[in-house]
């Protein structure tokens, strides 16, 4: 889907896949290194100053733009779900798929550092699901999503759900090429979440206030939460819902249906 120039290391020699019981070692040997004069030894040498003025995070933006074009060409609307850990992304997605997968061909990419626990919970006979285990990366990026999409075999896919890594900080600045970014804000969180994590809340099109069934037990002040959202994320459309009881869920489903209209 894209060509990219790796600045990293390459394995020395061909690596045959390990069969069960085998052990294979992938040696990331250093590429051929030329020798240099001692570091910092520039005394008396004329420097060439070069104005560059290039954005450092440009690579992700370039790939995100490619993803966006690719999704558009295939008639796919990609939805990026972001939130802190435990706000209810997977439960929401499971219920959403139950409701929509019969009428709309869907696909799912889910990102976590480790485990395929979420992917297992999202299994549906009509939906291809790919789990991306990042190891240490705290957010999905456009590169991962581009490759992840290639791992989903569904020619007629219309809705791609991307469940991002639970994190209210980093996902804010990584465009994945999505059509819609949806932020989950749970009624068991503090009402001041938007005030504490402005970049993320400013980057979303929709906010889902989840777990409304627990709001009363948690003493959650919904009016204050809405006020904070209006202050930080006036651009976002807000839906209040419970994935557990189904309260308010139909409005969210209608919103998704509306994306494809």
């Amino acid at each position, binding site marked *: 889907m894209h060509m990219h120039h790796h*600045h990293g290391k390459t394995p020395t020699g061909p690596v045959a896949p390990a069969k069960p019981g085998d052990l294979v070692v992938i040696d990331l040997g250093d590429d051929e290194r030329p020798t240099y004069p001692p570091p910092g030894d520039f005394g008396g040498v004329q420097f060439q*100053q070069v104005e560059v003025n290039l*954005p450092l995070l*440009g690579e992700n933006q370039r790939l995100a733009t490619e993803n966006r074009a690719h999704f558009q060409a295939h008639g796919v609307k990609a939805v990026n779900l972001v939130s802190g850990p435990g706000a209810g992304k997977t439960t929401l997605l499971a219920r959403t798929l139950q409701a929509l997968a019969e009428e709309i061909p869907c696909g799912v990419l889910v990102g976590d550092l480790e485990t395929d626990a979420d992917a297992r919970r999202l299994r549906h006979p009509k939906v291809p699901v790919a789990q991306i285990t990042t190891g240490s990366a705290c957010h999905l990026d456009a590169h991962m999503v581009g490759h992840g999409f290639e791992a989903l075999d569904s020619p007629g896919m219309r809705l791609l759900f991307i469940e991002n890594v639970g994190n209210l900080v980093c996902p804010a600045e990584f465009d994945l090429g999505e059509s819609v970014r949806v932020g989950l804000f749970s009624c068991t969180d503090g009402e001041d979440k938007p*005030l504490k994590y402005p*970049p993320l809340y400013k980057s979303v099109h929709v906010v889902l206030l989840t777990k409304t069934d627990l709001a009363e037990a948690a003493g959650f002040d919904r009016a204050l939460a809405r006020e904070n959202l209006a202050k930080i994320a006036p651009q976002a459309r807000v839906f209040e819902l419970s994935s557990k009881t189904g309260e308010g869920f139909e409005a969210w489903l209608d919103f998704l249906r509306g994306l494809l209209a």
Partner: protein
Amino acid sequence: MHELGIAQSALGLVLDQLRAHAATRVAGITLRIGSLAGVDEESLRFAFSTLLPGTAAEGAQVTIEAVEARAHCAACGIEFPASDGFLFACPQCGEFSGDVRQGRELDLARVELV
């Protein structure tokens, strides 16, 4: 964690410049970083200290040009310094503004090559 990715991205661009100008060594790297870019300078310098050795940029002087944040008020039309956070209250009329005119930069400004 995040700063390592930024340093890697910077190093990639720096080495591209080295090749483009057929130079041998990198003597200086200047980054332009806005106060709202969310970058911790100390972490970034640490990241460079781990990445530069063994490359043509080993020993390069890393300079960080800080850019102060400035926002624009749609209500009264003035531009004002926005020092912290995202709740920018206009000092003249008090209206909130999210219109940031500068302060989000995260660029490789220039390199010095030998």
